[in-house]
């Protein structure tokens, strides 16, 4: 187990190192100098040079890379070029929107997908199963930003139940929740469709296992066997996918945040990219990649702890 843990930690460190290099290089080759972008078209060359020096842009690339990585490792993410604010503080502010939004979307997706997946697996091959499969097919095919527009059309413009966009802040928690309701529904739909399919196929696979037959042989009904032995085992792949979905929901909301003008993490990245606020792009993308790599690492360790056969791989 210790050898396995050491090997996985090595892979984790190597992945983070390579990811940071890739991000740095991609952002570095971006045309457009942040300093001249900030000062506008008519800036004097010496003003631009002074700003470049202030931002540290005149240092050698390798040195900038190393100081960026060292900063990330100590929780010092740098200072945004355009907002003149610490990146860490900006991320923390944006997470007040993105984190609840991702959480709401995931909970909603679970609330729809898990019962639907269980129903489909339990009624496999019958009308309910076919209905769930058809619904998931459509759910996967719908672009979430288009679904968002339709939701706005119905619930904001026609029925006037919910706001069409913007974020009301958390001073009034109900208003905050209301402004996140439609974005969360739009984000949840495709996730729910994917989760429902995985729940269904995982449960169908589990129901074919010998221990389910044993449970049936000792007198449990199909429903009892499913509830007592099937569900728990089928949840393992479902939880893995949910872990990954969550980290993607944080940034994957980038287009949905555009639709609803939400000041979230996705919109922060989008604005930073268009404003050449390179340090913000680098740090936020790195944080997201770190989250995904960490989730993968933890799942891997958790599996190995539960199932000794996986340690030798």
């Amino acid at each position, binding site marked *: 187990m210790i050898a396995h843990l050491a090997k996985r930690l090595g892979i984790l460190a190597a992945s983070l190192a390579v990811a940071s290099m*890739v991000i740095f290089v*991609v*952002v570095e080759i971006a045309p457009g100098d942040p300093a001249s972008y900030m000062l506008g078209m008519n800036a004097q060359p010496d003003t631009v040079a002074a700003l470049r020096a202030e931002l540290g842009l005149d240092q050698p690339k390798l040195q900038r890379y190393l100081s960026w990585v060292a900063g990330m490792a100590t929780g010092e993410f740098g200072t945004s070029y355009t907002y003149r604010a610490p990146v860490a503080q900006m991320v923390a502010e944006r997470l007040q929107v993105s984190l609840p939004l991702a959480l709401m979307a995931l909970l909603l997706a679970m609330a729809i997908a898990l019962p639907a997946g269980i129903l489909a697996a339990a009624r496999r091959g019958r009308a309910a199963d076919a209905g769930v499969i058809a619904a998931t*097919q459509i759910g996967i095919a719908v*672009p979430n930003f288009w679904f968002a527009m339709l939701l706005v059309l119905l619930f904001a*413009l026609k029925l006037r139940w919910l706001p069409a966009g913007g974020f009301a802040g958390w001073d009034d928690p109900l208003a905050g929740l209301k402004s996140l309701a439609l974005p969360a529904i739009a984000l949840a739909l495709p996730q729910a469709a994917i989760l429902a399919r995985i729940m269904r196929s995982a449960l*169908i696979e589990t129901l074919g296992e010998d221990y389910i037959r044993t449970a049936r042989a000792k007198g449990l009904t199909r429903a009892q066997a499913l509830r007592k032995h099937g569900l728990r085992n089928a949840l393992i792949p479902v939880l893995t996918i949910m872990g990954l979905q969550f980290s993607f929901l944080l940034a994957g909301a*980038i287009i949905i945040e555009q639709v609803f003008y939400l000041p979230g993490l996705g919109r922060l990245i989008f604005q930073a990219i*268009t404003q050449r606020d390179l340090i913000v792009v680098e740090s936020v993308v790195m944080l997201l990649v770190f989250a995904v790599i960490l989730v993968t690492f933890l799942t891997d360790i958790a599996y190995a702890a539960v199932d000794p056969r996986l340690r030798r791989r």
Partner: protein
Amino acid sequence: MKPTLLIGATLTALAFGAALLSFAWTPFDPSAISVPDRFQPPNASHWLGTDHLGRDMLSLVMTGARTSLGVALVAVGIGTGLGVPLGLAAAARHDGWIDQLIMRGNDLVFAFPSLVIAILITAVFGPGAINAIIAIGIFNVPVFARVARGGALPLWRREFILAARTAGKGAARISSEHILPNLASLLIVQGSIQFSLGILAEAGLSYVGLGAQPPVPSLGRMLADAQTMVSLAPHTAIVPGAVIVLTVLGLNLLGDGLRDRLDPRLTRAPA
């Protein structure tokens, strides 16, 4: 033929047919602006209505589908062209350094938030259809590498490969002559999935203004144009979105149907 396969094939054929037809003929000139005719709901002359500039929506979605399908198709081409050889090489030297390098590289690409990177690439290299293709295509490479490797590994342990090795064929020749043909069905199915994902990605990029640029029509940008007028003329948003949904749905059904047909083991247990 199963009904889902039939529906999938029909929808896909319709989408491709309309896109191809638009090269030769559209009901109206898709760029012809006629402000007095704007926001017309679907009617006898404009079957899908007109947009905020009075352009015919049917003509626009036909030419827009061309962009969506073209971008997604070339992105799948990039994915198979680079990913399949990589996957085959990894399988031929299983557990060797090439295999390790390719698989670790794959894990890494999967860790990146694909949409964010696609937006970064298109923003860095400039918005446009070509860069959208590259941004989407890059993320197809590891997918096809993984599928090709996973399909090839068990084949390397089969007798007919052993026979080919005994006959003196090298790994590269075995991969192209004996392994690749056996992966065809697997790759076709994955291709249809990546194709539909590519259409959704292209729509998203165009929606935020980083895909095909005017005057090239695209379904995503039609949606962006429609956003501010959705209450005034709902059909301007509903039509392009519905076209995307039907195309993606068609491709997914086609992929599922082909998988069931090409791999008989799966027909009894759709998973």
